[in-house]
Every structure is written in C-alpha cells, then in structure tokens.
C-alpha cells in the first residue's frame, strides 16, 4: 500500500524551505563525483538541473530527443516569467505571488511548494541576468515588466515575445559549459523508453538511439525526469510536435503515481483551427491581453467584418463581466467565456469558433511603433499563418490545449513515489493546482532545476545506501527485452491506418469530452471510445520502416500507444472529480453565473493514480491542508 507523504516540513510557511535546506543532508564535495545522475529532458527544468548538478560535482548524463538540447519545447514560450521583485513598486511581494498562484490554481496545490516557488523566483531573475539573458529594459537601464493574467501587479519579466527562448538559451549555455568541462555527458536524439528500478530504487533508463535505432542502457544513482507536459494527447495543441508523455508514462507503469491527470490548461488566445490537415495550433501569447481587447458582436450570427461593426454593437465580454481584472482574467476563465460566446452563436470567422482580440485602441493610444516593439514577432507570426494583418483587422483567437498541470506525483523534495526518481518542470504536478497562471511555468521549471533539485537530490543521495548497479545488471536486460518486444509488436501489426489517423481520432474524442467543458456522460463515452481506439491501434495500425533505422513513424507510434492509455486515465480522473476547479470544468458543477463551483469538502485533495494494468488504476489521495490562505470562491470581478 502506498502512502502519500508530502514531506512538506512543519513550521511557519516563510521558514519551511530555509529550515528544510538546513535539515537536509549534504554530500561532501569530494564524494559528489562518485555519484551518477541521469537527467532526461533539456527544457528549462532539465537543462538548469543538469548544469547545476554538474557544477556541484555530480556526474551527469543528460538526454533529449532533439538533435540539440536547445530545441526543447521551452524554447517556444513567449510571454514571460514571473518574480516578486516588486521593481515596479506596485505592491508585489513573495506572499502576493504565492497567494496569486495558489488562488489562480483554484486551491488545488500544496501551500509549501507554491510558497517555495515564489520565494526562489527572485533568484531566477538574478541568475538569468548574470548569464546574459537579454531581458527587456527601460531607458534608464533597469528591467522592464509587463502584466499577466490573474495578477494585479506587473511582475512579468520578458525578452520580446521570446522569453522562453532566451531563458532556455541561458540554461543551455550553462549546460554547454558543463558539457565542455566533461561534467555532463550529453546524449541527444535519444528517446527514453523505460525506467529501470533495482531494489525499489530508480537506477537507470533505457533509451532508443533515434538515429541508429539501437536500444541503449544507462545506469545511475538517481534519475531525474524533466520531460515536459502531455498536451499532445489532444493531437492538436500548442506543444511542439514531438513533445510526448512516454517518459513519464513508462515511469508511471513502473510504479510512479500520476497526479491530477485531468488538470489540463486550455489557453484562450490561440490561432483558430482552419483545416483537417492541420498539425498543430499556434499560441498568441497571453501578454497580448495587456493591450488587446477581447470582443464578439452583441448579436448572434452577425457576420459583418469586424470594422463594420460599430462600437455600440460590440460586446467586450471580459471587461463587462470582470471589471476589476478585465481582459486579464486567468486563462481558464477567459477560455470558458470565449467558448460560451461561441456556443451562443456569437463566434466570428468562417467557422464561428473564434473571438476577436483587438488592438485598435492600443495602437491609437501608444502608436504602432510601441506595439510593434512589444509584440512585433507575434503579429508577424499571426500574419504568416492567417494572411491577415493584425495592425489592420483584429486577431481571431480561440482556446486550445496548452499546458498540463497534472503529471507525476512528487513530494516536497520533487521525488516521485519511486525512490530516486525525481520529476521536474511541467512533467510533475506540483505547483499549479488546477490552473496555471501565465508566466509561471518558466518560473517553476527554473526554480526546480536551479534551486530545488540540487538540494533535495543531494539529500537523497546522502541518506541512502546504493548497491553496485551497472547497465549489465539483469534488471536492465529485462527492460531492454521488454522494449524490443514492444517495438516489434508495433512494427508487426501492419494494418491499414496510419499512426496520425488514430492520433487525430483520439484528439477529437479528448477535445470533445475531456476538453474545456466536461460532463459525466461525455467522459464515460470517452472512456469507451478510447478503449476502442486502443484496440484498433493494436490491430490496425501501420508502422512503416524498420526498428534499426531512423524511423519517425515508429517514434510517433510509441508515443500514440501511450496517449491511448493516458487519455483514458485523464477521462477517469475527470469523471471521478465531481466538482469544477480551474481548468477542470464539469458542467454539472457550476454557480448560477456559470463559474466553476469547487467542492472543498470532498475534493480538496490531490488525486494520485496507481497503475495496475491498462484500464485499471487505484486512486490515492493526498489531502491538501491550507494553513495560510483560506480557499474561497475565486472572484476576478
């Protein structure tokens, strides 16, 4: 029986991390080089962790599926990163950042974790500046800030519309330095396909070399997963095409609990879907809501072009419904409202599945140049994709899957339920509860990698005994054989459907029933349909090419096989959670004003699922205790 201990230290909220840091064991500098650590993933979380652990002296082996660590999906983050520097003198503080984040998450996150996140956020900004990250600056030479959803202070640091890129290149540069020094051994174009557990401890991984197709085994004293989110279950999402759940899912199947899988974030401002061939969705950064105003025509079915709809006949619904936060309400709220308007027939564009994001006022007020400076690359990207000029006509936007709050369950030390398996960044479930605020994923990834894991991993290594385990150990060959069998099975189906066809169908099921609004009946339908799709996949998929070669179809097939299992768990989790909170909106549970209605009495817990076999999971609960904030109905009015 698994017991879920958060391991959050006792004491005052403000002192927990400091006390914990003091209480944790240290590894003597000379001994650090005797420990091997595997890090999977080179996004913000993985790159920062690899670099920092190597700086401390550990031998790090780092893996990513791309040809370069710099291409991890974090590179695509646009808008910014939060910190409570209060440089703007607008009343920010660590406590306020903590409060906003936990409230934004609809009170479904652990207080201690979120507070620690807010606490180290300031160090992140310092660290990045020291690395040479070219954040936006004011004329006086000091750092500039912008506002993001769910906050009434300006605390978001940014580098044009490429914040994720610049932060990742910073972490990548630190990683490169360690690779150059020989402390990190970098393994690009490797996909982790399984975890190796020896004597109950995570001791290694098995990967596929994506160029040669060889199955390779690597051992270590601890394994860190920083493999990002699982938004691609939905086929269409803002995630990179190859972002996947394989690493966390295979770890889950080895015993790591999966927490809150149904907490997915739908981002309100994405470029709408325009065709069946579409391969992914493109995000328009939340920062645009600083200056853009969201509206639809007041009259349903009004198909006039935007500029022919007079002011009086426009409904700026966010400003109307939420006067104090206006266009900057959190994402879940903005998304749901957009959907509501479209459901009411007020959607715009060919498909009617879009609302306007209008910059006309901002351009009038600030001038085109100022807007260009702030959002130039986003406007350009919009025009490239839609062939419309957002300086002239309002953008059309629609919500899309963007981020997954759920992930592998971890304790305060970021260790999963498998000893020695740590999970960082979007891959874990830890800090965002049921909804993540903008600009806080970057913050979390770097907090985990730069400032948390170096301490907690050391503590783990110092407090445990390790038997001699190399990749020749029998456990490794067992796992390897399993993988070979799996790959062979995929290649031998030789059916009639392509991997993408089945993935696309799964995406439709997920979006219709486990998307922005869910209900019990739809979720049950989803579970059945996913089961069927899974059967179809294993009896009718066609994976071309061979195992011993660069084979992108095979790569995708393995990932889709996992989505077909994970999708079901997401639906089951959504079905069991009979409340609405954050990104999880159950139509049966809403207030009279159609806002999410939480049920703190029955659902104030983290749902952590234990894998028994495909289609069968056991639920474990970690109760959430709120000592410092009082969960209340979220209001952004």
């Amino acid at each position, binding site marked *: 029986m698994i017991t879920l201990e958060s391991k959050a230290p006792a004491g005052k909220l403000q002192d927990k991390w400091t006390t914990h840091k003091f209480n944790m064991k240290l590894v003597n500098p000379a001994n650090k080089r005797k420990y091997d650590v595997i890090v999977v993933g080179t996004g913000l979380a993985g790159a920062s962790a690899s*670099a*920092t652990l190597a*700086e401390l002296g550990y031998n790090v082996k780092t893996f990513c599926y*791309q*040809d*370069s660590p*710099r*291409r991890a999906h974090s*590179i*695509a983050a646009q808008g910014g990163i939060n910190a409570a*520097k209060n440089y703007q003198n607008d009343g920010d503080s660590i406590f306020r950042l903590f409060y906003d984040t936990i409230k934004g998450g609809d009170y479904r996150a652990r207080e201690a974790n979120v507070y620690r996140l807010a606490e180290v956020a300031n*160090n992140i900004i*310092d*660290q*990045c*500046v*020291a*690395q*040479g990250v*070219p*954040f*936006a*600056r004011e*004329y*006086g*030479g*000091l750092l500039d800030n912008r506002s993001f959803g769910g906050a009434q202070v300006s605390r978001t640091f940014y*580098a*044009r519309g*490429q914040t994720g*890129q*610049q932060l990742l*290149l910073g972490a990548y*540069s*630190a990683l*490169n*330095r360690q*690779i*150059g020094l020989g402390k990190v051994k*970098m393994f690009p174009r490797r996909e982790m396909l399984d975890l190796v557990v020896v004597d109950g401890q995570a001791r290694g991984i098995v990967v596929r070399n994506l*160029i040669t197709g060889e199955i390779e085994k690597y051992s270590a004293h601890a394994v860190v997963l920083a493999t990002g989110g699982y938004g691609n279950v939905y086929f269409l999402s803002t995630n*990179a*095409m190859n972002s996947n759940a394989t690493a966390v899912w295979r770890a889950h199947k080895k015993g790591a609990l999966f927490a809150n899988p149904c907490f997915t974030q739908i981002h309100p401002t994405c470029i709408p879907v*325009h065709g069946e*061939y579409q*391969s992914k969705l493109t*995000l328009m950064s939340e920062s645009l809501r600083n200056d853009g105003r969201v509206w639809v025509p007041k009259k349903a079915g009004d198909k006039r072009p935007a500029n022919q709809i007079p002011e009086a006949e426009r409904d700026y619904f966010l400003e109307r419904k939420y006067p104090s936060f206006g266009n900057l309400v959190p994402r879940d709220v903005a998304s749901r409202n957009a959907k509501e308007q479209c459901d009411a027939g007020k959607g715009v564009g060919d498909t009617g599945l879009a609302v306007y994001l209008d910059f006309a006022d901002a351009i009038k007020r600030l001038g085109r140049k100022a807007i260009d400076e702030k959002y130039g690359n986003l406007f*350009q*990207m919009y025009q*490239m*994709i839609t062939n419309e000029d957002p300086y002239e006509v309002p953008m059309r936007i629609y919500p899309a899957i963007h981020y997954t709050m759920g992930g592998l369950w971890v304790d305060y030390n970021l260790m999963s339920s498998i000893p020695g398996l740590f999970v960082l960044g979007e891959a874990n479930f830890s800090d965002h509860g049921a909804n993540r605020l903008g600009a806080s994923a970057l913050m979390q990834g770097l907090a985990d990698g730069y400032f948390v894991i*170096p301490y907690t991993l050391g503590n783990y290594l110092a407090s445990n005994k390790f038997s001699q385990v190399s990749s020749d150990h029998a456990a490794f060959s067992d796992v390897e054989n399993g993988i070979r069998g799996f790959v062979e099975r995929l290649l031998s189906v030789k059916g009639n459907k*392509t991997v*993408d066809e089945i993935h696309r169908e799964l995406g439709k099921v997920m979006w219709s029933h486990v998307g922005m609004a869910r209900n019990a009946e739809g979720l049950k339908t989803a579970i059945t349909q996913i089961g069927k799709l899974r059967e179809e996949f294993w009896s009718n998929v*066609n994976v*071309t090419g061979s195992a011993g*070669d*660069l084979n*992108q*179809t095979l790569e995708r097939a393995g990932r889709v096989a996992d989505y077909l299992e994970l999708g079901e768990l997401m639906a089951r989790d959504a079905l069991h959670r009979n409340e609405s909170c954050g990104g999880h909106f159950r139509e049966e549970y809403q207030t009279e004003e159609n806002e999410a209605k939480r049920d703190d009495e029955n659902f104030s817990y983290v749902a952590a699922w234990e894998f028994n076999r495909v289609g069968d999971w056991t639920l474990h609960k970690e109760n959430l205790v709120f000592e410092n904030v009082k969960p209340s109905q979220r209001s952004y009015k």
Partner: protein
Amino acid sequence: MSGNLNLTLKIWRQANRTSIGKFETYKVSNISTDASFLEMLDILNEELQRKNQEPVAFDHDCREGICGACGLVINGRPHGPIKGTTTCQLHMRHFKDGDTIVIEPWRAKAFPVIKDLIVDRSAFEKIQQAGGFVSINTGGVPDANAIPISKEIANIAMDAAACIGCGACVAACKNASAMLFVSAKVSHLAHLPQGKVERFERVEAMVKVMDELGFGSCTNTYACEAECPKEISVRHIAKMNREYFAAKLKARNKD
C-alpha cells in the same frame, strides 16, 4: 483567399549517412493554400504510408519558427522564398498551382546528411560548448538590477540572441561558413557587461573550434543575413571580427 494546389515535388532521398542519395519525384494534389509547407509534407507522408512506402524524414518540432529544428532548401533557397521565415512557418499560399518544388537538405561538409532531409548539426553544439556561455555557477550572483544596461545595448544583444541555430546561414553561404551563427553568440555576450568579463577567451575558443569543424570562411557575400529566418545582421560578424582582433592583440595568453 484559400484555394487548392497540385504540385510536383522533387525530394532528396538518402537512406543514411554513407549511402548515395538521389532525387525522387512525387505528386501531391489538393493542397490548401492555408497549409504550411511541413503540413504539405505531412500529407505526402500519409499517402506514402498508405502505400506502404517509407515517408520522407525531415526534422521539425515546434512548428512555430523558434526551435530551429526544421530547415529545407526549397528551390535553392534555405527555408524557401519568403524572407524572415522558417520552413515550418512557410505557407503554401506562396506557391502556384502546377509548381515543381525541389526540396534538398542543408549541404555542407560540417553538416553530413543523416537521412533524407535530416542533417547532423552537432558541429554547432561543439562551438557553443567551447565558449558560448558566461562562466558562472548557479547562485551567488548580484541582484538583477545591480548593473543597468542601456536599452539600446540590451536590444542589440537581443537581436543577436534571437538566433535559433537552424543552420540556414551555413546552408545559404557559398562557402558553408558558420560565421553568422558563431558571431550571433559572440556578439550577444560581448555587448553585455556580464559577458564582457571573458570576451577574449570566448571568441578565441569558439573560433578555434569553428575552424576545426570544416566550415568555410566568410567572404562577406551576406547571403546568410538574407536567408536567416531571424534576420540576424552581418553587423554581428563585424563585431566578432573586432572581438577576435582585440583578443589576439590584447589577451595575455599566447594561444
């Protein structure tokens, strides 16, 4: 605005690093002008798979023009005909019905082909590992606002830092030179006070490794700047030339 295209594609197919590649001709029909170039290739690949043939391998990930994974030479131009665009952001509305499109991989000694349209860009990694960083560890750094940096300088640094490492500069250069890529990092860091501290060591180390990897030299044709999807200026190359010159004259080491 949207319409449909029928196209002839001539695509480079090469089984692996050592095999000899050749062009294969394919036809695709009914491609929406709103589709992206890679979505057009997706459609081709779906068709190939249905016919039990191996799909065309090409690198891609973000499909938002930022990860730098994608990169095809389309009718002789890296990332295709539109300025300031990556292959993944190129849309089919820029082609005409009936067009023949020739698709090749980046070609350079330093970027050997791995399969079809995928090349090995690990040479870029080695250059970055040699010096593309500020040598500081995590922790112990000053407050972010401790050193003011003028907006102008921060902007120049950002212009250089916008490089996505796709390799189009090498692909476009008649000498397959990596100068724009390397200089983007050198210039980014050399402009900032944080990077100035070890500017000489950095530029010397990065140029040394660049030279060892088989890239050509810059002859200032500026094709790189024209094809760079992020429109990085050759002014950064001049900056690197200056930095290296200064390093050779002033640095006390005798390397």
